[in-house]
């Protein structure tokens, strides 16, 4: 692509031919954004009457609070994932893994705890690992565990659920377990041909430039999804009729399935999903644990990423596997946590009367 472009520049072939219609202009998005923001500030008194509805204000309070609360954790997460993408050589990881797959998988799963960052980062890293000869099953165990059990996520979960260390412990255990199980299942049944063409991040960009770009891009992506997640939680709190909420949150099986699907549809970054879960206050902790474990393992953003790095056929097989294992592990650990702590909030939702 570079050579081609250079050639075209040299011959002038990259200019539109004389007489051809001018290329369509993209929307001047920057200008529109600036105008809209300035207008919002200046016209605020005019809008005051229109936007005073109780439901709208409460909805806004909830989704803004989720976004604001999660912001520092998101920022920290993208800074670190950018740093890892830019400065950490992937070979370091492969050398640390044991040779035999049966041991490499749990070690790779645990290694995820050391690498903070969003799921956006772990997929390309797993791609690099696989491309460099690491056992694919171990790479996948790492790919699933790194976004879910790293320190930032655990701290964020502790902040989101103060006084509930059992929730943090359950999230760590269930996600690690799910990562290891998926690794073993893939080692046993997976088709190695599916990942022959694994693509990794290219390292030819200068490290600091790559750091800045990855951090910026990841924040924009994750921030957007965080807002969507916050809006969803706010909508459940404020707008969804109580009868529907009673049905969703009052029945454990429905609650688990609903939050599992929600986790797939809302591709929220793992540093931030605990704050969205905290907004789902009618739901039992087991169903919320399902939300927290499924999210970093499989969601629409991850499926797209995995399809890009490992190929579509792979993604079509891996996503359902990860989903089923994640739900099963989360439900199992949730029930165990409820039994161990004797706390009914694990299995019962608080239904709005």
């Amino acid at each position, binding site marked *: *692509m*570079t050579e081609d472009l250079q050639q075209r520049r040299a011959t002038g072939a*990259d*200019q*539109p031919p004389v007489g051809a219609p*001018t*290329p369509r*202009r993209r929307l001047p*998005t*920057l200008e529109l*954004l600036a105008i*809209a*923001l300035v207008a*919002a500030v200046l016209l*605020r008194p005019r809008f005051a009457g229109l936007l005073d509805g109780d439901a709208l*204000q*409460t909805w*806004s*309070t*909830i*989704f*803004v*609070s989720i976004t*604001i609360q999660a*912001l*520092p954790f998101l*920022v*920290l997460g993208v800074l670190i994932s950018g740093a890892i993408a830019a400065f950490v050589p992937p070979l370091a990881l492969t050398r640390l893994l044991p040779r035999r797959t049966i041991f490499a998988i749990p070690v790779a799963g645990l290694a995820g705890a050391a690498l903070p960052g969003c799921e956006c980062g772990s997929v*390309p890293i797993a*791609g690099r690992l696989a491309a460099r000869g690491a056992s694919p099953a171990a790479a996948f165990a790492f790919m699933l565990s790194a976004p879910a059990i790293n320190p930032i996520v655990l701290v964020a979960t502790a*902040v*989101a659920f*103060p006084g509930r260390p059992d929730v943090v412990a359950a999230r760590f255990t269930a996600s690690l377990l799910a990562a290891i199980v998926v690794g073993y299942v893939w080692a046993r049944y997976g088709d190695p041909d599916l990942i022959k063409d694994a*693509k*990794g*991040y*290219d390292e*030819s*960009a*200068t490290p600091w*430039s790559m750091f800045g770009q990855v951090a*910026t*891009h990841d*924040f*924009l*992506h994750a*921030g*957007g*999804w965080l*807002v969507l997640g*916050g809006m969803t939680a706010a909508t459940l*709190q*404020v707008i969804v009729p109580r009868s529907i909420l009673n049905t969703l949150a009052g029945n454990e099986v429905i609650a688990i399935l609903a939050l599992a699907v929600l986790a797939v549809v809302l591709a929220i970054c793992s540093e931030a999903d605990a*704050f969205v879960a*905290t*907004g789902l*206050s009618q739901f039992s902790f087991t169903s919320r644990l399902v939300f927290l474990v499924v999210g970093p393992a499989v969601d629409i953003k991850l499926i797209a990423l995995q399809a*890009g*790095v490992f190929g579509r056929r792979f993604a079509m097989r891996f996503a359902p596997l990860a989903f089923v294992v994640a739900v099963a592990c989360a439900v199992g650990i949730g029930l165990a946590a409820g039994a161990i702590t004797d706390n009914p909030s694990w299995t019962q939702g608080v239904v709005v*009367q």
Partner: protein
Amino acid sequence: MDERTQGALLLAVGGVTIRLGLSDAAFNFIRPEYVPLQLIAGTVLLVLGAITLLRGLRADVSDVVDGRGPDEGHMHHDDDVQDAVAGGQGHAHGHDHAQGPRVAWMLAAPLFAILLIAPPPLGSFAANRQSGVIQSSVSTYGPLPPAEGDAVPLRLGDYTVRALYDPEQSLEGQRVRLTGFVSRQEADGEEGWLLTRFALNCCAADGTAINVEVVGDQPAPAVDQWVVVEGTWRNRDGHEIGELSAEPPLLVVESVQTTEQPVEPYEI
């Protein structure tokens, strides 16, 4: 969105975050101890935004220098990234890097919400959507705080668990002072109006409404009005102290004063 817009969006998010953190409005959303984190995060975003915006502006300048039109050519914003993509189809994101992720536009939503709506702290609307059941969370209640003036000031959370569950009835005969807002003027066919305050665990998203039913001959203030109420506790007929109750505790009112919303509207 091109790189300039990405940078501008980051600058806007960072700027609004910092402005929010420096104002009292932050307390509508988060606990006070997390405000410093907001300021730090906002600063980082300002830096990232400035860098991205500058890179976008430089790309535009180089477009002009190379004789390209404003929107033609230059599909990649930086030679480094060009090489990276050329090298091995590296970025597995499945979209053109210079475009930026479209979902990022959602980040504009909280900006406009804060600027246009200026969301208030949770009020009567949110309180009335909750069941209001208060659970006992402590087993020993400790001594009451010292009186200020002729009444003991108590948080609603403190008052309600003592009123419903304290076996030693530490509230007996005590004149107490409670601060909250009116969430309902007639509490479902019962005598009084509901005094409410929200308790936060994490942030406004998980706020729990704590209610006290105020009975007596004082007229109910307007809904969502903040008031300071002084009165004494009376046990509700039929309620066994120590048992879980679906109904809020009672307060027999002696004086009601309207007041301003406190700077920190939530109880932690």
